[in-house]
């Protein structure tokens, strides 16, 4: 036996030959070269071993002749050693390498969003019809603890620190140019501009073509400091210091050299074709005091005109960390839960490190309130906000707004095949290969993003109206609007909510 064992593919391409017209669209659209045409037999064939289950062929097949099914090939059933666990051992025995994965944690951990129910008005308080009455979804992110000061004429002075105005409490998560394509970035930037919200550059710098979207851009300063310079900071509406990422808390990033094209190299200010390594820590931050120095360095560099966000991964003691951040001078804390996405992460870390955003968010909001410093910062929740109800529940738990990453990519065509790290994204999102990048037309992409967020806004208004609440401000931290279902006393106490029926 040599190094590698044959592993039967997890998914199989099933072709309905009665419907297949052999147009070969599937073959032309598959960067993994799954499909092939046999001119002698005049038939299409598929090599399942190459399929990543991205559904590009399924979506483009004009006669809907294709589907992808879970393989029923199995080892002897074993509740302890399931097929995937066994295969991972085989893979590592063959390669000696760390297992890599992409996108968010797919393991069956509890999803607390789905164990919380939302309230509605009946009899004693009126519900509101958002189609007939005002329903405010705009929010402002930033410090709200301005002191009251008057000038010599007794007029109130504006001492409010800089704020970010969002028309809907949703922003697009940090996804770097490099990990996603130029066209994906353009789609996000244009959608953010049209929606009156913000997108986030991630740590890959900002392509010069996108400086014009600056007023809707949050730029990131991460441990690799890629692409950070004066113009980058000045163009942005806000600056985010990335301390951690929900998908891979405690470790840095690694963009393979194959993705460092000319444009990515220029934007990141690093050599072409060389792996881009983001260190695990910021080498100048080992304490809250160090963090404070970077926060104020960035504020000083931008004349105190822009809010500074500090993004952390949701980990065990995140409430204490958030308390420190709230005292560091940061304006906004972003917390990324362990189901958050990534373009590549070691599988073991993605699947086992960190905690759910619901618990982290609740404990951070509670801690900051208890310490009387909740108004020092806004809180942005991230890490798998899948729908307007997740958004609504996050706000009720204490978030000022949410980041959406995976949901945004899904609206651009992503089918969660979780193969981003292979760089052959058939949907033109997580790739730098020009022939694949062009598959995402930003003209189509940005409109789909705008429609998604607009739909969520309508749903949010509808649900708030039902509760008799007419603004997001009034919903924030309103945990009485939530009830747990099937949760233990301990879970309820961490979430700070009552059980249904109570």
């Amino acid at each position: 036996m040599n190094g590698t064992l044959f592993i039967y593919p997890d998914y199989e391409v099933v072709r309905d030959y009665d419907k297949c017209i052999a147009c070969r669209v599937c073959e032309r659209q598959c960067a993994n070269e799954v499909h092939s045409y046999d001119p002698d037999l005049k038939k299409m064939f598929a090599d399942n071993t190459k399929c990543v289950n991205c559904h590009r062929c399924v979506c483009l097949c004009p006669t809907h002749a294709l589907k992808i099914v879970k393989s029923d090939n199995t080892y002897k059933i074993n509740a302890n050693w399931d097929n995937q666990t066994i295969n991972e051992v085989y893979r590592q025995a063959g390669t000696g390498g760390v297992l890599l994965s992409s996108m968010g944690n797919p393991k069956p951990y509890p999803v607390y969003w789905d164990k919380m129910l939302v309230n509605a008005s009946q009899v004693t308080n009126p519900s509101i019809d958002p189609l007939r009455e005002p329903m405010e979804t705009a929010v402002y992110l930033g410090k709200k603890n301005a002191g009251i000061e008057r000038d010599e004429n007794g007029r109130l002075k504006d001492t409010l620190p800089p704020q970010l105005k969002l028309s809907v409490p949703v922003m697009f998560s940090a996804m770097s140019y490099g990990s996603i394509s130029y066209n994906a970035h353009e789609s996000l930037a244009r959608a953010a501009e049209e929606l009156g919200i913000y997108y986030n550059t991630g740590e890959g710098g900002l392509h010069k073509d996108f400086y014009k979207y600056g007023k809707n851009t949050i730029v990131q300063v991460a441990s690799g400091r890629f692409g950070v310079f004066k113009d980058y900071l000045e163009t942005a509406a806000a600056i985010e210091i990335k301390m951690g990422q929900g998908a891979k808390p405690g470790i840095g990033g690694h963009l393979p050299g194959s993705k460092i094209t000319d444009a990515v190299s220029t934007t990141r200010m690093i050599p072409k074709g060389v792996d881009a390594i983001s260190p695990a820590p910021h080498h100048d931050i080992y304490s809250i005091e160090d963090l404070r120095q970077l926060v104020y360095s960035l504020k000083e560099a931008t004349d105190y005109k822009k809010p500074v966000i500090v993004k952390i991964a949701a980990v065990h003691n995140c409430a204490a960390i958030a308390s420190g951040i709230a005292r560091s001078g940061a304006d906004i804390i972003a917390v990324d839960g362990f189901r958050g996405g990534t373009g590549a992460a070691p599988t073991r870390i993605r699947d086992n490190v960190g905690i759910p955003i619901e618990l982290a968010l609740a404990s951070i909001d509670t801690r900051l309130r208890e310490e009387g410093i909740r108004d020092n910062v806004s809180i942005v929740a991230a890490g798998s906000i899948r729908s307007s109800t997740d958004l609504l529940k996050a706000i009720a738990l204490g978030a000022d707004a949410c980041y959406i990453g995976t949901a945004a990519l899904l609206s651009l065509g992503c089918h969660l095949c979780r193969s981003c790290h292979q760089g052959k994204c058939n949907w033109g999102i997580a790739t730098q290969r020009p022939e694949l990048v062009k598959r995402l037309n930003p003209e189509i992409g940005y409109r789909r993003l705008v429609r998604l967020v607009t739909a969520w806004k309508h749903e949010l208004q509808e649900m708030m109206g039902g509760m008799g609440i007419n603004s997001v401000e009034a919903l924030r931290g309103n945990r009485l609007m939530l009830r747990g279902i099937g949760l233990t006393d301990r879970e309820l106490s961490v979430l700070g909510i009552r059980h249904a029926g109570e």
Partner: protein
Amino acid sequence: MKRIYVKEKWCLGCHLCEYECAYANSGIADMVKALKGKNICPRIKVEDGDGVHFAVNCRHCTDPICVKSCIAGALSREGDGMVSLDRDKCVGCYTCVMVCPYGAIMPAEDGKAAQKCMLCTDNQMNGEPNCVKHCPNGAIVFEDRG
């Protein structure tokens, strides 16, 4: 007039438009029945080069050389500017096929007449060009550019 334009930048070379065209002009309601086992003869054709793809069909020229060359009076320029082919008048001499600088007129499947894009006005699509409707990347558009 509204014409079909192709944006080379977004054309993926998937060739779906060719099949959608062949289906639209088949006169058969079911795509599988219309196209299964057939060699299609679409009125739009994707030219593939080294990393470049471009779907080509009739440009509906303002001074169409095909109309001038037609010996049977089958080709004409309609009031709205569409270059139209009357199959009943066409004698199948294929002069138009040879003179079209874009290669956008070709012999019909039966070999008895020429065929060209009529902007889906002469088939089951009722004037909504099927290639435009089904292009997955918005590379084929139907718009009035004056």
